[in-house]
């Protein structure tokens, strides 16, 4: 009986479509929008890489999807197009010590499908400044040929990751940065 079950399991595994490995490609980006007592600010990185393992066919039906993903972003690649602000931001993120910002996927659940775009809820662990936090966020995954485009947005607090909101001194006075920031990303991966 035991051998029979094992055989059935092996057959099921053999018949299930194999997971594909997708890798981050140029065209990806992540933006962080924040606010301060002076003006709103925005930083962006185009170096969003990592690996996404899943069977794309499973995105065509609602329910949990067996998938693994690790998104990696090089901390210093976040740019504001302002030299001084970049220096302040990279110092606040301890970019020299904590060279990457990471997200490890735990769970992925397809909630709705429209055309070839799957609306999903995902849960994972985000690591910034060496500190981790489990978050859940909605994402969409669009399949086009051998490419997937994963889009999503969420809000985070800098202090949750041990980051003191920067308060640089300018000739016009000091700046107070708000703790809350909005993260938005577009992660392009290809087989």
């Amino acid at each position: 009986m035991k051998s029979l079950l094992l055989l059935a399991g092996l057959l099921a595994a053999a018949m299930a479509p194999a997971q594909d490995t997708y890798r981050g490609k140029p065209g990806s980006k992540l933006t962080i929008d924040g606010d301060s007592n002076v003006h709103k600010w925005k930083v962006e990185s185009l170096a969003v890489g990592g690996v996404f393992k899943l069977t794309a066919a499973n995105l065509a039906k609602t329910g949990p999807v067996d998938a693994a993903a690790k998104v990696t972003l090089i901390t210093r690649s976040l740019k504001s197009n302002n030299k001084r602000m970049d220096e302040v931001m990279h110092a606040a993120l301890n970019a020299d010590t904590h060279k990457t910002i990471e997200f490890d996927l735990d769970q992925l659940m397809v909630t709705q499908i429209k055309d070839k775009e799957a609306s999903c809820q995902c849960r994972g662990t985000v690591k910034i400044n060496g500190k981790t936090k489990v978050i859940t966020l909605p994402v969409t995954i669009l399949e086009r040929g051998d490419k997937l485009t994963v889009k999503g947005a969420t809000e985070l607090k800098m202090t949750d990751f041990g980051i003191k909101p920067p308060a640089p001194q300018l000739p016009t006075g000091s700046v107070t940065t708000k703790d809350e920031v909005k993260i938005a990303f577009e992660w392009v991966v290809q087989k």
Partner: protein
Amino acid sequence: MALLRAMELRAQEAPDSARDSAATPPIRCGLIGCGPRGREILSTLAVLPSAPLVAVCDHYPASLNRARKLAPKAAGYDAAAGLLADKQVEAVIIATATHQHLPLVQAALKAGKHVYCEAPLAHTMEDARAIAALAKAHPRSNFQSGLQLRSEPQRHFLLPFIRAGGLGATLKARVQWHRKQSWRQVSPNAEREKEINWRLDPALSPGLLGELGLHQADVVSWFYHLRPSAVTGFGSVLKWKDDGRKVPDTVQAVFEFPGGAHLTQEVTLANSFDGEYEIFYGTDSAIMLRDSRAWMFKETDAPLIGWEVYARKDQFFGETGIALVANATKLAAKEEAALASPFQNTPLYYALEAFAYNAHQVKTAVEDFVATFGEGDAPAIAEHLSKLKESRLPAADAADGMQATIVALKANEAVLTRKRIEILDEWFKV
């Protein structure tokens, strides 16, 4: 009639909040060419923490020794190949004679160095185009043309003001560079004297418009966001006839721009009156730039902008007069503070600062690209870097340098041939 009161146009914020070169991770530099220009660069690098000079190169022993005395920690090389093989050197500044630039740029880019090439880029259109093509083919290296005014903050402060129509309708521009100096360098060695006086050799010299005039002419093209469509020139040897030179010491050129605006340029080595300036004329006002300061002269019928009511006004009579009054020193000192430009460094300083910072930006962006996406081909990396262009400090790239060089060389040709030369778009396609 224009009002005889000038309003100074100043950036409101000292630029230091955005410029702290000490905070920029350093890019180790090597200097090729230690003549007078090279030594000026060397002195500027000495006060720029983000661009430590680690190597100097000149094939002439006296020039090399002099440079090494000024930069004792830098390694010395008598051939460029040695400096380019030095792994300590990340970026190269080329300050040799103009006609020597191309092979040095080629070798430096091949060696994976970032390159700052003095302007003009070359003494021929073909070399200028070849340099621009090389820079394009090596996107992993930051290439900067030595059009230093493109990095100067006062001009960047003025750019949006002029582009937004602060002058009214564009009419014309006038630029001038007046000095009294022979351009001839002296050496006890006849062969060396011939070599260092390449600017006076008609076969090699880009002329006054090529060597000096291109900076100001480029500012006008840059502000107008247009390339001249034709140039006419005149020139003569008027002051320095005794040494038998053929390269004119006094030149004028008129550049025609699409739409009808003209630029009149005058460069002379025979008279220093009124130094150097750029003036932009429009239907509502004129703007004059001198060094790192600028003034606007409004027409009486020009619309009121608002802020000019509160701006400081100076009287202008073409020259600065020394006031012979009691307490002149005290008053002068007070005035001096009020007159001081918020930009205390030279255009060369800002250009080299931008070069070091941008080289660091390119270097890290390429490293991050490779770490994230793996080794990419040149077009993929070039596309990635093009999206990061806004994160760089303003500086002239290879295309800017090629355009300014070709236009200036054609202006020099117009002077020598006394002809009107049409400037063709196809010359600028790389």
